[in-house]
């Protein structure tokens, strides 16, 4: 397998990666810029990181964002997993097509429309906007992503394992809890991670559904950028990039490996 890359492949690959990562690289470099001017390099410094730590507005926004991401992704995982299970397992029932269509619609729905309609709903039922409403909004749009991830796992899941559990005396719920869930856990975790990162960087839906006391980090960054890009923002973005990079990449590696391993184990348990 020692195939050498042709010059064409090398060029395409470098161009693609440059396109993807050059902007981020510039941002990271300038976050260590000693000058306040974004476009002029004046030597290495970590001062913007220090001043960021003293910026209460950003810290508050970060705390809001983390809480929103945690609760919405957890809720979305529970609901999305349940929806996936019903869609894959329940077979044909009246309205199945409608139901599955409705679950996947938010995938293609423009964020503006999702945000606006949720805003109208919250106003209609007189719900004060705040962290709670952002959590609800993020749950709505991210549960369909969880549902996609989990249902693709369930489709390759051997039904006879559940039947064996029933056969050995489990109630259907017990069979799900003690057989299905442990086996699909890696997929559920990746669904959760996906929902978490989606919530972390959502700007549009959050700005529709956030209240005055619940500004999330993307909203805060966006509004301060309109007044001019400060190196503090660069520093903050660099931190977020590292968190996302380290967290998501390693977690997805782990869960991918777990999925492959589990799949092999499952194939071993279920004779082909």
């Amino acid at each position, binding site marked *: 397998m020692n195939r050498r890359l042709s010059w064409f492949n090398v060029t395409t690959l470098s161009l693609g990666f440059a396109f993807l990562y050059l902007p981020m690289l510039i941002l990271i470099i300038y976050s260590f810029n000693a000058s306040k001017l974004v476009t002029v390099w004046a030597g290495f410094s970590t001062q913007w990181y220090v001043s960021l730590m003293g910026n209460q507005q950003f810290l508050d926004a970060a705390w809001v964002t983390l809480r929103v991401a945690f609760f919405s992704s957890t809720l979305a995982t529970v609901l999305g997993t349940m929806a996936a299970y019903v869609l894959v397992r329940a077979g044909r029932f009246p309205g199945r097509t409608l139901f599955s269509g409705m679950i996947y619609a938010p995938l293609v729905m423009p964020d503006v429309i999702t945000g606006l309609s949720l805003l109208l709903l919250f106003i209609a039922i007189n719900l004060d906007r705040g962290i709670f409403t952002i959590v609800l909004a993020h749950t709505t749009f991210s549960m369909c992503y969880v549902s996609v991830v989990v249902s693709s796992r369930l489709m390759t899941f*051997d039904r*006879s*394992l559940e*039947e*064996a*559990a*029933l*056969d*050995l*005396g*489990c*109630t259907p719920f*017990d069979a799900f809890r003690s*057989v299905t869930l*442990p*086996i699909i856990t890696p997929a559920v975790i990746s669904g959760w991670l996906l929902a978490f990162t989606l919530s972390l960087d959502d700007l549009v839906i959050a700005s529709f559904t956030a209240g005055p006391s619940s500004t999330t980090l993307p909203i805060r960054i966006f509004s301060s950028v309109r007044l001019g890009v400060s190196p503090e923002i660069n520093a903050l973005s660099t931190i977020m990039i590292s968190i996302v990079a380290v967290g998501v990449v390693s977690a997805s590696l782990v869960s991918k490996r777990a999925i492959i391993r*589990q799949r*092999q*184990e*499952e*194939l*071993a*348990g*279920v*004779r*082909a």
Partner: protein
Amino acid sequence: MAQSKPQNVFAPWDDPNEVPLIRFRNVTKRFGTFTAIDSLDLDIYRKEFFALLGPSGCGKTTLMRMLAGFETPSEGKITVDDVDVGPIPPNKRPVNMMFQSYALFPHLTVEDNIAFGLKRSKMSRDEITARVTEMLRLTRLEKFARRKPHQISGGQRQRVALARSLAKAPKLLLLDEPLGALDRKLREDTQFELMDIQEKTGTTFVIVTHDQEEAMTVASRVAVMDHGRIVQVDTPAGIYETPNSVYVADFIGDVNIIEGNASPAGEGRVSIHYAEGAQPIIAAADHIPDGQRVSFAIRPEKIVVGTEPDPDRTNQVRGRIVDIGYLGNVSTYHLELPGGQKFSAQMTNARRLARRDFTWDDEVWLSWTETAGVVLTE
């Protein structure tokens, strides 16, 4: 085979006072417009080792799944111990199934797999441990108790699946092609193991197989199925010696089939005219109307091949040897009758090869007795 010992034969199906454990009454199962099981009646008795035999797609698995509760009959009734099991969900039935795919839980160890069903019963912890140990010993898996299914071999997995389904001591154990994936040696060993376990535990076994030899080896009775119907239910010997149709005769073992018109030939005998100018075949048969179109079925090993006609046997036919299949202990002779019919005969090789009397293209005599074959009207 049990049939050869007349004293205390196990034959509850012949006892009119015996109540069957399982009864299928006019059961039909349709998937959409496709009929997988077609108004089927069947009785299975306690402690039987009952084999369902038939080609792929004839409805064997569907029959099992209805017993286990994963499918509901479209029509008809299934009773276990005189209780209609229709409304009972799978987890409440006194039935356990060993799946065609084993369906071992990949995230649990061998012992946890075996204990899985026990933990859902009212057993105490100590009882469960004891039972699991017993099952591990019975299936010779003690050394693998702590391993996961992907860490053991195919044959061991199959035994885990068996142990798991046996652990709850069900009234009825369903085995869906349990030995399909095993190689021949392991398969034969396991067949005897299964019979041994069945004898020790006294459980009623229903086994699905498409391997006729397996069915003949393990079963007390065999049901031969075709397209969702049961064609014949009988002991292995009964199925082999007295098939009720060409389908069954052809399905089990090798057989020669000759078609002809029957005419009475004295008490309990018919003569079958199968070719112009040929001596009719004389065979034992009752109640065959004159002129009825019949099929005469005879197993290759019931035919004697010789250079001279055998005077002790009623039927004597000339044939020409087309091919000889030498299998060591036996030889199969492929012959052609004067009318062009193909015929095969099997003889044990009592003599060494070099001293055999006949070879390719030799004209020989085929002889068989009146009772060597059966006359079939279907």
